[in-house]
């Protein structure tokens, strides 16, 4: 009887934890039970639910077992962290609507400069067009970060029967390993990777990495990223995870022509950790935010980065995770309209982003919406947006024309 009341996940957690360790538990009790606080002497609920007769509590194994024996208790669940799955974040930015229009990234070359990739992961296997190694001897991912990032941009969800699909699931991947197993590297290795990606004629480069400290965009890495943009490549860069203080965007996030990406959650709140502008020379950054909290995506074999979900997937947070959402969005937009310049792509994403009510140095132009960008139509504002300047005359028309609409 006791076993039937305790959920499988809670049972498993009880076996894994020491007897005295407390676990987060949701207790459902019978209606006639007057108050949850009476359930376990000396234990106050952390939350009392009204919709159903239940309470969240922190209990040790003995308390859980004792509760399961009580006639007044119906069920006990482990209170588990909630995660924004890729299917959730893709929906938030309306990628499926662009896929339905026929654009899934076919023919697009996405370069990911990171910790490498697991080439055998089903979500990316067979779509890695080229690799390069600038640290160590192999492009294989010995950290997990690079595989996670690449699959957010272009994973096809093969290991999840199509549940965790990346933003541009039919794009080709160009992988440069510029970060070592500990997730660190040198600016010059990243610069070499950017050069390689430009030589590979990548359409878009994703850099989910950065240095600490404020910058003004004149350092060598930032200048290299801007030079790649000048060559016609869109470069998306993570803003950094040093928020919420101001002046926390590092290099190359402070580069002038890149798309600097902050992180939001699936409730359209800017993540506390997401770095804020301005740059040290006073420019607004980030340029835009994309989902980057609790993102479930591909897990490289033999790695345990983030919060492991299962053999093939793991959950992680950071502007690292937000950036490949932007990368995939750019690939979709460029497939839909190959004549867009990097400057036009950036302007389009920013002008169609949804204002989620934060100051510009936290949200940039707002949270990106790839379908609105595809349509060339500004996103409807959040219910109570702060006052923001209207786009200048002619901009909206220009955007519509980019996609052959509006004459």
């Amino acid at each position: 009887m006791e076993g039937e009341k305790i959920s499988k996940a809670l049972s498993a957690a009880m076996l894994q934890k020491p007897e005295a360790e407390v676990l987060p538990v949701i207790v459902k009790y019978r209606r006639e039970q007057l108050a949850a606080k009476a359930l376990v002497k000396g234990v106050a609920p952390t939350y009392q639910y009204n919709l159903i007769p239940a309470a969240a509590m922190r209990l040790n194994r003995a308390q859980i077992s004792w509760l399961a024996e009580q006639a007044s208790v119906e069920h006990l669940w482990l209170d588990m962290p909630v995660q924004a799955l890729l299917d959730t974040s893709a929906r938030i930015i309306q990628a499926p609507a662009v896929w339905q229009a026929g654009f899934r990234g076919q023919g697009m070359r996405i370069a990911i400069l990171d910790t490498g990739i697991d080439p055998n992961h089903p979500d990316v296997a067979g779509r890695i067009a080229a690799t390069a190694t600038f640290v160590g001897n192999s492009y294989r991912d010995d950290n997990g970060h690079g595989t996670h990032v690449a699959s957010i941009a272009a994973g096809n969800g093969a290991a999840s029967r199509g549940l965790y699909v990346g933003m541009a699931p039919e794009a080709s991947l160009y992988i440069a390993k510029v970060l070592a197993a500990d997730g660190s590297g040198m600016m010059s290795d990243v610069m070499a990777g950017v050069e390689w990606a430009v030589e590979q004629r990548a359409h878009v480069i994703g850099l989910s990495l950065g240095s600490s400290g404020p910058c003004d965009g004149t350092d060598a890495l930032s200048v290299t990223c801007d030079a790649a943009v000048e060559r016609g490549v869109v470069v998306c860069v993570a803003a950094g995870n040093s928020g919420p203080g101001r002046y926390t965007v590092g290099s190359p996030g402070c580069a002038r022509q890149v798309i600097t990406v902050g992180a939001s959650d699936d409730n359209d709140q800017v993540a506390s950790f997401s770095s804020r502008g301005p740059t040290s020379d006073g420019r607004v950054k980030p340029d835009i935010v994309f989902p980057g909290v609790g993102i479930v995506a591909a897990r490289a074999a033999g790695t345990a980065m983030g919060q492991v979900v299962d053999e093939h997937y793991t959950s992680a947070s950071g502007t690292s995770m937000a950036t490949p959402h932007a990368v995939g969005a750019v690939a979709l937009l460029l497939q839909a309209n190959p004549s867009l310049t990097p400057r036009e792509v950036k302007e389009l994403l920013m002008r169609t982003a949804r204002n989620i009510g934060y100051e510009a140095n936290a949200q940039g132009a707002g949270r990106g919406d790839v379908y609105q960008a595809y349509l060339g139509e500004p996103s409807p504002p959040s219910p109570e947006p702060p006052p923001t300047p209207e786009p200048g005359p002619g901009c909206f028309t220009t955007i519509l024309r980019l996609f052959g609409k509006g004459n």
Partner: protein
Amino acid sequence: MPKADERLIRQLEQSPAGEFHLILRVSGDVEDVAEKLRATPIEVRHALRLIGAVAVRAQGKEALRLLDEPWLVRMEEDRPVRALA
């Protein structure tokens, strides 16, 4: 504009035998400069054509000598970067 920040120059002076990772922005042909540097004890890590730069590993005293080279436009530290998850 000085070729290097005062702070970096001080570090090089204070640690002439210390090892420094540097990015040198150069004028002229990057490969020519890299070739010249390879003939010295300085290790060339990358020749970067996109912006005309060479990434090197050098002792402080060697780096200080580079400041007098006419082809050197700017010297800066090659700083660490990290994955942002």
